[in-house]
Protein backbone atom coordinates (compact mmCIF):
# COMPACT_ATOMS: atom_id res chain seq x y z
CA UNK A 1 0.00 0.00 0.00
CA UNK A 2 2.82 2.36 0.94
CA UNK A 3 4.57 1.45 -2.31
CA UNK A 4 1.43 2.22 -4.30
CA UNK A 5 1.10 5.55 -2.55
CA UNK A 6 4.71 6.39 -3.32
CA UNK A 7 4.24 5.47 -7.00
CA UNK A 8 1.06 7.53 -7.08
CA UNK A 9 2.78 10.53 -5.50
CA UNK A 10 5.75 10.26 -7.88
CA UNK A 11 3.47 9.98 -10.93
CA UNK A 12 1.40 12.94 -9.76
CA UNK A 13 4.56 15.00 -9.28
CA UNK A 14 5.74 14.17 -12.82
CA UNK A 15 2.37 15.12 -14.30
CA UNK A 16 2.32 18.41 -12.38
CA UNK A 17 5.89 19.10 -13.45
CA UNK A 18 4.96 18.51 -17.10
CA UNK A 19 1.90 20.71 -16.73
CA UNK A 20 4.07 23.46 -15.23
CA UNK A 21 6.58 23.11 -18.06
CA UNK A 22 3.87 23.60 -20.69
CA UNK A 23 2.39 26.51 -18.73
CA UNK A 24 5.84 28.08 -18.52
CA UNK A 25 6.47 27.59 -22.25
CA UNK A 26 3.07 29.07 -23.19
CA UNK A 27 3.55 32.14 -21.00
CA UNK A 28 7.17 32.66 -22.04
CA UNK A 29 6.14 32.73 -25.72
CA UNK A 30 3.05 34.85 -24.99
CA UNK A 31 5.13 37.46 -23.16
CA UNK A 32 7.41 37.93 -26.21
CA UNK A 33 4.65 40.14 -27.59
CA UNK A 34 3.52 41.75 -24.30
CA UNK A 35 4.77 44.96 -22.68
CA UNK A 36 7.03 45.75 -20.91
CA UNK A 37 9.86 44.53 -23.17
CA UNK A 38 13.06 43.88 -21.27
CA UNK A 39 15.39 44.79 -24.15
CA UNK A 40 18.49 45.20 -21.99
CA UNK A 41 17.92 41.77 -20.46
CA UNK A 42 17.58 40.22 -23.93
CA UNK A 43 20.85 41.81 -25.09
CA UNK A 44 22.59 40.75 -21.88
CA UNK A 45 21.38 37.17 -22.37
CA UNK A 46 22.38 37.18 -26.05
CA UNK A 47 25.85 38.04 -24.87
CA UNK A 48 25.82 35.34 -22.16
CA UNK A 49 24.33 32.63 -24.39
CA UNK A 50 25.85 33.56 -27.75
CA UNK A 51 29.02 35.62 -27.54
CA UNK A 52 30.39 33.88 -24.46
CA UNK A 53 29.77 30.44 -26.02
CA UNK A 54 31.71 31.28 -29.18
CA UNK A 55 35.01 29.84 -27.99
CA UNK A 56 33.67 26.46 -26.97
CA UNK A 57 31.54 26.16 -30.11
CA UNK A 58 34.38 27.07 -32.50
CA UNK A 59 36.74 24.68 -30.74
CA UNK A 60 34.37 21.70 -30.77
CA UNK A 61 33.29 22.40 -34.36
CA UNK A 62 36.86 22.69 -35.63
CA UNK A 63 38.07 19.47 -34.03
CA UNK A 64 34.94 17.55 -34.97
CA UNK A 65 35.47 18.58 -38.59
CA UNK A 66 39.08 17.41 -38.37
CA UNK A 67 38.11 14.05 -36.87
CA UNK A 68 35.38 13.57 -39.48
CA UNK A 69 37.82 14.24 -42.31
CA UNK A 70 40.46 11.98 -40.76
CA UNK A 71 38.11 9.04 -40.15
CA UNK A 72 36.42 9.26 -43.52
CA UNK A 73 39.78 9.67 -45.28
CA UNK A 74 40.97 6.33 -43.90
CA UNK A 75 37.91 4.58 -45.38
CA UNK A 76 37.85 6.59 -48.62
CA UNK A 77 41.50 5.94 -49.38
CA UNK A 78 40.57 2.26 -49.98
CA UNK A 79 38.31 3.31 -52.86
CA UNK A 80 40.39 6.24 -54.06
CA UNK A 81 37.56 8.59 -53.18
CA UNK A 82 39.42 10.96 -50.86
CA UNK A 83 38.47 13.92 -53.07
CA UNK A 84 34.95 13.62 -51.71
CA UNK A 85 35.99 14.26 -48.14
CA UNK A 86 34.65 17.83 -48.38
CA UNK A 87 31.18 16.53 -49.29
CA UNK A 88 31.14 14.19 -46.35
CA UNK A 89 32.35 16.74 -43.82
CA UNK A 90 29.95 19.46 -45.00
CA UNK A 91 26.93 17.15 -45.17
CA UNK A 92 27.59 15.77 -41.70
CA UNK A 93 28.32 19.14 -40.13
CA UNK A 94 25.49 21.16 -41.67
CA UNK A 95 22.73 18.59 -41.37
CA UNK A 96 23.51 16.86 -38.11
CA UNK A 97 26.66 17.45 -36.16
CA UNK A 98 26.64 21.24 -36.30
CA UNK A 99 23.17 21.73 -34.75
CA UNK A 100 23.44 18.81 -32.33
CA UNK A 101 26.96 19.64 -31.13
CA UNK A 102 26.15 23.32 -30.71
CA UNK A 103 22.95 22.33 -28.88
CA UNK A 104 24.74 19.95 -26.53
CA UNK A 105 27.55 22.42 -25.85
CA UNK A 106 25.11 25.23 -25.08
CA UNK A 107 22.97 22.89 -22.95
CA UNK A 108 26.04 22.09 -20.88
CA UNK A 109 27.46 25.58 -20.64
CA UNK A 110 24.44 27.87 -20.75
CA UNK A 111 21.62 25.57 -19.59
CA UNK A 112 23.43 24.74 -16.38
CA UNK A 113 24.23 28.42 -15.85
CA UNK A 114 20.62 29.51 -16.31
CA UNK A 115 19.33 26.77 -13.99
CA UNK A 116 21.91 27.64 -11.32
CA UNK A 117 21.19 31.36 -11.53
CA UNK A 118 17.40 31.06 -11.41
CA UNK A 119 17.62 28.26 -8.83
CA UNK A 120 19.76 30.46 -6.58
CA UNK A 121 17.28 33.29 -7.02
CA UNK A 122 14.50 30.90 -6.00
CA UNK A 123 16.20 29.65 -2.82
CA UNK A 124 17.26 33.15 -1.76
CA UNK A 125 13.69 34.45 -2.22
CA UNK A 126 14.67 36.78 -5.08
CA UNK A 127 11.91 35.28 -7.25
CA UNK A 128 9.41 36.00 -4.46
CA UNK A 129 10.82 39.54 -4.29
CA UNK A 130 10.11 39.99 -8.01
CA UNK A 131 6.55 38.76 -7.48
CA UNK A 132 6.09 41.05 -4.50
CA UNK A 133 7.27 44.04 -6.53
CA UNK A 134 4.58 43.33 -9.10
CA UNK A 135 6.88 41.77 -11.73
CA UNK A 136 6.04 38.47 -13.38
CA UNK A 137 9.21 36.35 -13.03
CA UNK A 138 8.42 34.53 -16.28
CA UNK A 139 8.30 37.82 -18.17
CA UNK A 140 11.43 39.19 -16.50
CA UNK A 141 13.60 36.07 -16.37
CA UNK A 142 12.33 33.42 -18.77
CA UNK A 143 11.20 35.36 -21.86
CA UNK A 144 14.51 37.27 -22.35
CA UNK A 145 16.45 33.99 -22.07
CA UNK A 146 14.08 32.28 -24.49
CA UNK A 147 14.39 35.06 -27.09
CA UNK A 148 18.18 35.12 -26.72
CA UNK A 149 18.48 31.34 -27.08
CA UNK A 150 16.12 31.25 -30.11
CA UNK A 151 18.26 33.85 -31.86
CA UNK A 152 21.73 32.77 -30.78
CA UNK A 153 21.55 28.98 -31.26
CA UNK A 154 21.15 29.23 -35.08
CA UNK A 155 23.98 31.77 -35.18
CA UNK A 156 26.24 29.51 -33.10
CA UNK A 157 25.33 26.57 -35.31
CA UNK A 158 26.38 28.39 -38.48
CA UNK A 159 29.69 29.27 -36.81
CA UNK A 160 30.07 25.66 -35.65
CA UNK A 161 29.41 24.42 -39.22
CA UNK A 162 31.96 26.80 -40.70
CA UNK A 163 34.55 25.88 -38.06
CA UNK A 164 33.94 22.18 -38.77
CA UNK A 165 34.33 22.58 -42.52
CA UNK A 166 37.54 24.55 -41.96
CA UNK A 167 38.76 21.76 -39.70
CA UNK A 168 38.09 19.29 -42.52
CA UNK A 169 39.95 21.58 -44.89
CA UNK A 170 43.05 21.46 -42.69
CA UNK A 171 43.09 17.64 -42.78
CA UNK A 172 42.29 17.58 -46.50
CA UNK A 173 45.19 19.92 -47.25
CA UNK A 174 47.91 18.71 -44.89
CA UNK A 175 47.04 15.02 -44.46
CA UNK A 176 45.41 14.08 -47.75
CA UNK A 177 47.29 16.69 -49.83
CA UNK A 178 44.05 17.78 -51.54
CA UNK A 179 43.94 21.24 -53.14
CA UNK A 180 41.84 23.69 -51.14
CA UNK A 181 39.86 24.68 -54.22
CA UNK A 182 38.86 21.06 -54.81
CA UNK A 183 37.82 20.68 -51.17
CA UNK A 184 35.56 23.75 -51.29
CA UNK A 185 34.15 22.74 -54.67
CA UNK A 186 33.02 19.42 -53.22
CA UNK A 187 31.61 21.25 -50.22
CA UNK A 188 29.50 23.46 -52.50
CA UNK A 189 28.48 20.48 -54.65
CA UNK A 190 27.18 18.76 -51.57
CA UNK A 191 25.25 21.83 -50.36
CA UNK A 192 23.66 22.43 -53.75
CA UNK A 193 22.88 18.75 -54.43
CA UNK A 194 20.25 18.69 -51.70
CA UNK A 195 18.08 21.12 -53.61
CA UNK A 196 16.86 24.61 -52.77
CA UNK A 197 13.94 26.14 -50.96
CA UNK A 198 12.55 29.22 -52.76
CA UNK A 199 15.30 28.70 -55.40
CA UNK A 200 18.08 30.26 -53.29
CA UNK A 201 18.15 28.66 -49.84
CA UNK A 202 19.82 25.23 -49.82
CA UNK A 203 17.73 22.51 -48.19
CA UNK A 204 20.69 21.61 -46.00
CA UNK A 205 20.66 25.12 -44.57
CA UNK A 206 16.98 24.78 -43.71
CA UNK A 207 17.79 21.51 -41.92
CA UNK A 208 20.66 23.17 -40.18
CA UNK A 209 18.78 26.23 -38.98
CA UNK A 210 15.37 24.82 -38.01
CA UNK A 211 16.96 22.41 -35.58
CA UNK A 212 19.01 24.88 -33.50
CA UNK A 213 16.03 27.22 -33.34
CA UNK A 214 14.04 24.43 -31.65
CA UNK A 215 17.03 23.37 -29.55
CA UNK A 216 17.33 26.96 -28.29
CA UNK A 217 13.76 26.79 -27.04
CA UNK A 218 14.37 23.40 -25.42
CA UNK A 219 17.53 24.51 -23.60
CA UNK A 220 16.21 27.82 -22.27
CA UNK A 221 12.80 26.50 -21.21
CA UNK A 222 14.22 23.35 -19.60
CA UNK A 223 16.78 25.38 -17.65
CA UNK A 224 14.21 27.96 -16.52
CA UNK A 225 11.70 25.24 -15.60
CA UNK A 226 14.12 23.38 -13.35
CA UNK A 227 15.52 26.63 -12.00
CA UNK A 228 12.11 27.90 -10.97
CA UNK A 229 11.22 24.55 -9.36
CA UNK A 230 14.36 24.51 -7.22
CA UNK A 231 13.85 23.65 -3.57
CA UNK A 232 16.18 22.60 -0.78
CA UNK A 233 18.84 25.30 -0.70
CA UNK A 234 22.20 25.06 -2.42
CA UNK A 235 21.92 21.27 -2.73
CA UNK A 236 18.68 21.83 -4.65
CA UNK A 237 20.49 24.22 -7.01
CA UNK A 238 22.98 21.45 -7.81
CA UNK A 239 20.17 18.98 -8.47
CA UNK A 240 18.38 21.44 -10.77
CA UNK A 241 21.58 22.07 -12.71
CA UNK A 242 22.22 18.37 -13.25
CA UNK A 243 18.60 17.71 -14.24
CA UNK A 244 18.73 20.56 -16.72
CA UNK A 245 21.81 19.28 -18.53
CA UNK A 246 20.60 15.66 -18.60
CA UNK A 247 17.03 16.49 -19.66
CA UNK A 248 18.02 19.10 -22.25
CA UNK A 249 20.66 16.79 -23.77
CA UNK A 250 18.22 13.89 -24.04
CA UNK A 251 15.49 16.12 -25.45
CA UNK A 252 17.92 17.52 -28.06
CA UNK A 253 18.91 14.05 -29.26
CA UNK A 254 15.34 12.70 -29.31
CA UNK A 255 13.89 15.81 -30.92
CA UNK A 256 16.68 15.79 -33.50
CA UNK A 257 15.43 12.45 -34.82
CA UNK A 258 11.84 13.60 -35.16
CA UNK A 259 12.78 16.95 -36.76
CA UNK A 260 14.98 15.11 -39.26
CA UNK A 261 12.11 12.78 -40.11
CA UNK A 262 9.70 15.67 -40.52
CA UNK A 263 12.11 17.76 -42.61
CA UNK A 264 12.99 14.84 -44.87
CA UNK A 265 9.30 14.23 -45.45
CA UNK A 266 8.61 17.91 -46.12
CA UNK A 267 11.64 18.92 -48.17
CA UNK A 268 12.28 15.77 -50.17
CA UNK A 269 8.72 14.72 -50.92
Amino acid at each position, binding site marked *: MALLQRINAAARDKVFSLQEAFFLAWNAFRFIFARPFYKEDVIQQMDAIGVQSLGIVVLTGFFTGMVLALQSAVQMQRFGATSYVGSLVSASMIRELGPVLAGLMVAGRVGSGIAAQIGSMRV*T*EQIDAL*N*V*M*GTDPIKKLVTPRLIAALLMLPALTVINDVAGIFGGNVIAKYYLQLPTSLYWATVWDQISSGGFVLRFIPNDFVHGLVKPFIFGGIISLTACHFGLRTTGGTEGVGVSTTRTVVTASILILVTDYFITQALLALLHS
Partner: protein
Amino acid sequence: MRDADEPKDATETKSDNPADTATNTPDEERRATDRRGDDRDPDAVHPERVRAAIRKEITADQVADEDPRDTDAHPVIELRDVSLAFDRPILTGVSFAAYPGETVAIVGESGTGKSTIVKLILRLLVADRGEVCVLGNDIEKLTYEQALEIRQHMGMVFQGSALFDSLSVFENIAYPLREHTKLDDAGIEERVREKLRIVDLDPDQVMELSPSELSGGMQKRVGVARGLAANPKIMLYDEPTSGLDPLTTGTITNLILKLQREYKVTSVVVTHDIRSAFRMASKIALLHDQRIVFFGSPEEMTASDDPYIQTFLGGY
Protein backbone atom coordinates in the same frame (compact mmCIF):
# COMPACT_ATOMS: atom_id res chain seq x y z
CA MET B 1 11.34 24.67 20.41
CA ARG B 2 13.55 27.71 19.92
CA ASP B 3 15.43 28.44 16.74
CA ALA B 4 19.17 28.59 16.59
CA ASP B 5 19.07 32.27 15.63
CA GLU B 6 17.14 33.26 18.75
CA PRO B 7 18.88 34.77 21.74
CA LYS B 8 20.26 32.01 23.91
CA ASP B 9 19.68 33.62 27.26
CA ALA B 10 18.52 36.66 29.14
CA THR B 11 21.87 38.44 28.91
CA GLU B 12 21.73 38.50 25.12
CA THR B 13 18.36 40.24 25.10
CA LYS B 14 19.13 42.58 27.90
CA SER B 15 20.23 45.68 26.06
CA ASP B 16 21.27 47.14 22.73
CA ASN B 17 23.63 49.47 24.49
CA PRO B 18 27.09 48.02 25.00
CA ALA B 19 27.60 50.41 27.90
CA ASP B 20 24.86 48.58 29.81
CA THR B 21 26.63 45.26 29.64
CA ALA B 22 30.04 46.78 30.24
CA THR B 23 29.03 48.08 33.71
CA ASN B 24 27.82 44.72 35.04
CA THR B 25 29.07 44.06 38.56
CA PRO B 26 29.98 40.54 39.75
CA ASP B 27 26.65 40.46 41.65
CA GLU B 28 24.77 41.31 38.48
CA GLU B 29 26.69 38.65 36.62
CA ARG B 30 25.75 36.12 39.31
CA ARG B 31 22.10 37.12 39.09
CA ALA B 32 22.27 36.77 35.30
CA THR B 33 23.77 33.31 35.72
CA ASP B 34 20.94 32.43 38.09
CA ARG B 35 18.46 33.63 35.52
CA ARG B 36 20.08 31.45 32.86
CA GLY B 37 19.62 28.53 35.23
CA ASP B 38 15.92 29.45 35.59
CA ASP B 39 15.47 29.63 31.81
CA ARG B 40 16.76 26.14 31.34
CA ASP B 41 14.17 24.85 33.80
CA PRO B 42 10.80 24.75 31.99
CA ASP B 43 8.88 24.95 35.27
CA ALA B 44 10.75 27.97 36.53
CA VAL B 45 8.77 30.79 34.84
CA HIS B 46 8.35 33.93 36.89
CA PRO B 47 5.39 35.80 35.39
CA GLU B 48 5.82 38.90 37.53
CA ARG B 49 9.46 39.31 36.58
CA VAL B 50 8.65 38.79 32.90
CA ARG B 51 5.75 41.26 33.04
CA ALA B 52 7.84 43.88 34.75
CA ALA B 53 10.62 43.53 32.20
CA ILE B 54 8.22 43.76 29.29
CA ARG B 55 6.36 46.75 30.77
CA LYS B 56 9.70 48.49 31.07
CA GLU B 57 10.42 47.62 27.44
CA ILE B 58 7.09 48.98 26.23
CA THR B 59 7.25 52.25 28.18
CA ALA B 60 10.85 52.84 27.08
CA ASP B 61 9.71 53.28 23.50
CA GLN B 62 6.43 55.11 24.02
CA VAL B 63 6.46 58.41 22.22
CA ALA B 64 4.92 61.70 23.19
CA ASP B 65 3.55 62.09 19.65
CA GLU B 66 0.01 61.26 18.76
CA ASP B 67 -0.85 57.58 18.34
CA PRO B 68 -0.25 56.72 14.67
CA ARG B 69 -3.13 54.26 14.64
CA ASP B 70 -6.50 55.16 13.16
CA THR B 71 -8.81 52.50 14.51
CA ASP B 72 -11.98 54.21 13.21
CA ALA B 73 -10.97 53.57 9.63
CA HIS B 74 -11.47 50.34 7.68
CA PRO B 75 -8.81 47.68 8.13
CA VAL B 76 -5.93 47.82 5.66
CA ILE B 77 -5.35 44.09 6.07
CA GLU B 78 -7.96 41.66 7.28
CA LEU B 79 -7.91 37.87 7.52
CA ARG B 80 -11.28 36.24 8.13
CA ASP B 81 -11.44 32.61 9.23
CA VAL B 82 -8.47 31.62 7.03
CA SER B 83 -7.45 27.98 6.83
CA LEU B 84 -4.62 26.43 4.85
CA ALA B 85 -3.20 22.92 4.69
CA PHE B 86 -0.40 21.30 2.70
CA ASP B 87 0.50 17.79 3.79
CA ARG B 88 -0.77 18.79 7.24
CA PRO B 89 -2.93 21.68 8.49
CA ILE B 90 -0.87 24.90 8.70
CA LEU B 91 -3.50 27.48 9.66
CA THR B 92 -7.01 26.89 10.98
CA GLY B 93 -9.63 29.64 11.35
CA VAL B 94 -7.12 32.50 11.55
CA SER B 95 -8.68 35.97 11.83
CA PHE B 96 -7.17 39.37 12.59
CA ALA B 97 -7.14 42.90 11.23
CA ALA B 98 -4.54 45.65 10.90
CA TYR B 99 -5.82 49.23 10.79
CA PRO B 100 -4.09 52.20 9.15
CA GLY B 101 -0.83 53.03 10.89
CA GLU B 102 -0.86 49.91 13.05
CA THR B 103 2.01 47.48 13.39
CA VAL B 104 0.91 43.91 13.98
CA ALA B 105 3.62 41.52 15.14
CA ILE B 106 3.01 37.84 14.48
CA VAL B 107 4.90 35.72 16.98
CA GLY B 108 4.96 32.03 17.79
CA GLU B 109 7.10 28.95 17.78
CA SER B 110 8.94 27.79 14.66
CA GLY B 111 6.81 26.06 12.04
CA THR B 112 3.51 27.51 13.23
CA GLY B 113 2.79 29.29 9.93
CA LYS B 114 3.88 32.85 10.73
CA SER B 115 5.55 33.45 7.37
CA THR B 116 2.65 31.68 5.66
CA ILE B 117 0.36 34.51 6.79
CA VAL B 118 2.58 37.06 5.03
CA LYS B 119 2.57 34.93 1.88
CA LEU B 120 -1.24 34.80 2.04
CA ILE B 121 -1.41 38.59 2.34
CA LEU B 122 0.82 38.86 -0.75
CA ARG B 123 -1.14 36.12 -2.51
CA LEU B 124 2.01 34.12 -3.01
CA LEU B 125 -0.19 31.42 -1.45
CA VAL B 126 -3.96 31.02 -1.65
CA ALA B 127 -6.02 29.96 1.38
CA ASP B 128 -8.15 26.81 1.27
CA ARG B 129 -10.93 28.59 3.16
CA GLY B 130 -11.65 32.10 4.40
CA GLU B 131 -10.92 35.59 3.07
CA VAL B 132 -7.76 37.68 2.90
CA CYS B 133 -8.65 41.34 2.31
CA VAL B 134 -5.96 43.89 1.45
CA LEU B 135 -6.90 47.56 0.97
CA GLY B 136 -10.55 46.52 0.76
CA ASN B 137 -9.98 43.85 -1.92
CA ASP B 138 -10.44 40.14 -1.36
CA ILE B 139 -7.02 39.40 -2.80
CA GLU B 140 -7.84 35.82 -3.67
CA LYS B 141 -10.67 36.86 -5.99
CA LEU B 142 -8.44 39.15 -8.03
CA THR B 143 -6.92 38.13 -11.35
CA TYR B 144 -3.18 37.54 -11.43
CA GLU B 145 -2.60 40.94 -13.05
CA GLN B 146 -4.82 42.69 -10.48
CA ALA B 147 -2.91 40.97 -7.68
CA LEU B 148 0.37 42.24 -9.17
CA GLU B 149 -1.14 45.74 -9.09
CA ILE B 150 -2.19 45.45 -5.43
CA ARG B 151 1.30 44.22 -4.56
CA GLN B 152 2.67 47.54 -5.81
CA HIS B 153 1.09 49.10 -2.70
CA MET B 154 3.02 46.68 -0.49
CA GLY B 155 6.68 46.61 0.48
CA MET B 156 8.26 43.43 1.71
CA VAL B 157 11.45 42.86 3.68
CA PHE B 158 12.58 39.26 3.41
CA GLN B 159 14.33 37.19 6.04
CA GLY B 160 17.46 36.95 3.88
CA SER B 161 16.95 40.44 2.39
CA ALA B 162 16.44 38.88 -1.11
CA LEU B 163 18.39 41.66 -2.81
CA PHE B 164 19.08 40.98 -6.48
CA ASP B 165 22.73 40.00 -6.41
CA SER B 166 23.25 40.85 -10.07
CA LEU B 167 22.28 44.49 -9.42
CA SER B 168 23.94 47.25 -7.42
CA VAL B 169 22.33 48.72 -4.30
CA PHE B 170 21.12 51.66 -6.41
CA GLU B 171 19.55 49.39 -9.04
CA ASN B 172 17.95 47.22 -6.36
CA ILE B 173 16.14 50.19 -4.83
CA ALA B 174 15.41 51.72 -8.23
CA TYR B 175 13.92 48.47 -9.52
CA PRO B 176 10.29 48.98 -8.39
CA LEU B 177 10.48 52.61 -9.55
CA ARG B 178 11.66 51.67 -13.04
CA GLU B 179 8.99 48.98 -13.24
CA HIS B 180 5.95 50.85 -12.01
CA THR B 181 6.53 54.61 -12.11
CA LYS B 182 7.20 57.12 -14.84
CA LEU B 183 9.98 58.84 -12.91
CA ASP B 184 12.93 59.96 -15.04
CA ASP B 185 16.51 59.03 -14.12
CA ALA B 186 17.00 62.14 -11.97
CA GLY B 187 13.73 61.49 -10.12
CA ILE B 188 14.69 57.87 -9.51
CA GLU B 189 18.10 58.84 -8.16
CA GLU B 190 16.54 61.42 -5.88
CA ARG B 191 14.06 58.82 -4.54
CA VAL B 192 16.79 56.22 -4.03
CA ARG B 193 18.92 58.71 -2.09
CA GLU B 194 15.91 59.71 0.03
CA LYS B 195 15.12 56.09 0.94
CA LEU B 196 18.75 55.31 1.75
CA ARG B 197 18.86 58.31 4.09
CA ILE B 198 15.65 57.08 5.80
CA VAL B 199 17.40 53.80 6.63
CA ASP B 200 20.47 55.69 7.88
CA LEU B 201 22.78 54.73 5.03
CA ASP B 202 25.00 57.20 3.21
CA PRO B 203 23.89 57.10 -0.45
CA ASP B 204 27.30 58.16 -1.76
CA GLN B 205 29.00 55.30 0.07
CA VAL B 206 26.66 52.40 -0.69
CA MET B 207 24.79 53.13 -3.93
CA GLU B 208 27.35 51.61 -6.25
CA LEU B 209 28.18 48.61 -4.06
CA SER B 210 26.82 45.16 -4.82
CA PRO B 211 24.73 43.42 -2.13
CA SER B 212 27.51 40.93 -1.43
CA GLU B 213 29.75 43.79 -0.31
CA LEU B 214 27.33 44.77 2.48
CA SER B 215 27.08 43.42 6.02
CA GLY B 216 23.93 41.52 7.08
CA GLY B 217 22.50 44.56 8.85
CA MET B 218 23.19 46.85 5.88
CA GLN B 219 21.56 44.33 3.54
CA LYS B 220 18.46 44.36 5.75
CA ARG B 221 18.41 48.16 5.66
CA VAL B 222 18.77 48.21 1.88
CA GLY B 223 15.92 45.66 1.81
CA VAL B 224 13.80 48.07 3.83
CA ALA B 225 14.78 50.95 1.50
CA ARG B 226 13.76 48.86 -1.51
CA GLY B 227 10.48 47.96 0.17
CA LEU B 228 9.84 51.67 0.79
CA ALA B 229 10.90 52.84 -2.67
CA ALA B 230 7.43 52.98 -4.19
CA ASN B 231 5.96 54.65 -1.06
CA PRO B 232 3.81 51.64 -0.14
CA LYS B 233 0.81 51.80 2.18
CA ILE B 234 1.75 48.46 3.72
CA MET B 235 5.10 47.08 4.85
CA LEU B 236 5.57 43.38 5.54
CA TYR B 237 8.62 42.11 7.39
CA ASP B 238 9.61 38.45 7.54
CA GLU B 239 12.00 37.93 10.45
CA PRO B 240 13.66 41.34 10.00
CA THR B 241 16.06 40.81 12.91
CA SER B 242 16.91 37.15 12.57
CA GLY B 243 20.61 36.35 12.39
CA LEU B 244 21.63 39.86 13.46
CA ASP B 245 23.65 40.87 16.48
CA PRO B 246 21.79 42.68 19.30
CA LEU B 247 23.05 46.11 18.26
CA THR B 248 21.93 45.72 14.66
CA THR B 249 18.67 44.18 15.88
CA GLY B 250 18.07 47.36 17.85
CA THR B 251 18.86 49.49 14.79
CA ILE B 252 16.40 47.59 12.59
CA THR B 253 13.72 47.70 15.31
CA ASN B 254 14.18 51.46 15.67
CA LEU B 255 13.93 51.79 11.92
CA ILE B 256 10.59 49.97 11.84
CA LEU B 257 9.37 52.18 14.70
CA LYS B 258 10.49 55.26 12.78
CA LEU B 259 8.54 54.19 9.69
CA GLN B 260 5.47 53.59 11.83
CA ARG B 261 5.69 56.95 13.59
CA GLU B 262 6.90 59.22 10.82
CA TYR B 263 5.41 57.68 7.71
CA LYS B 264 2.25 56.07 9.18
CA VAL B 265 2.91 52.84 7.27
CA THR B 266 0.72 49.89 8.23
CA SER B 267 3.03 47.01 9.03
CA VAL B 268 2.92 43.29 9.67
CA VAL B 269 6.07 41.91 11.27
CA VAL B 270 6.78 38.20 11.55
CA THR B 271 9.35 37.71 14.26
CA HIS B 272 10.84 35.34 16.79
CA ASP B 273 12.22 38.26 18.69
CA ILE B 274 9.60 38.96 21.37
CA ARG B 275 11.62 41.87 22.69
CA SER B 276 11.52 43.67 19.33
CA ALA B 277 7.87 42.70 18.92
CA PHE B 278 6.97 44.39 22.18
CA ARG B 279 8.89 47.50 21.20
CA MET B 280 7.40 47.98 17.77
CA ALA B 281 3.93 46.40 17.74
CA SER B 282 0.55 48.00 18.39
CA LYS B 283 -0.97 44.52 18.35
CA ILE B 284 0.55 41.10 18.82
CA ALA B 285 -0.83 37.90 17.29
CA LEU B 286 0.41 34.74 18.97
CA LEU B 287 0.20 31.64 16.78
CA HIS B 288 -0.01 28.24 18.40
CA ASP B 289 -1.32 24.94 17.14
CA GLN B 290 -2.44 26.45 13.76
CA ARG B 291 -4.54 29.13 15.47
CA ILE B 292 -4.14 32.63 16.81
CA VAL B 293 -4.43 32.02 20.53
CA PHE B 294 -3.93 35.66 21.44
CA PHE B 295 -4.49 38.94 19.60
CA GLY B 296 -4.15 42.18 21.47
CA SER B 297 -1.83 44.89 22.68
CA PRO B 298 1.51 44.09 24.34
CA GLU B 299 0.05 45.32 27.64
CA GLU B 300 -2.88 42.90 27.32
CA MET B 301 -0.48 40.11 26.52
CA THR B 302 1.63 40.66 29.60
CA ALA B 303 -1.53 40.92 31.73
CA SER B 304 -2.87 37.60 30.43
CA ASP B 305 -2.98 34.69 32.84
CA ASP B 306 -3.16 32.14 30.02
CA PRO B 307 -0.60 29.47 30.93
CA TYR B 308 0.65 29.07 27.32
CA ILE B 309 1.19 32.83 26.94
CA GLN B 310 3.04 32.96 30.22
CA THR B 311 5.18 30.00 29.26
CA PHE B 312 5.84 31.57 25.85
CA LEU B 313 6.87 34.88 27.39
CA GLY B 314 8.84 33.15 30.10
CA GLY B 315 10.74 31.26 27.45
CA TYR B 316 12.33 34.53 26.48
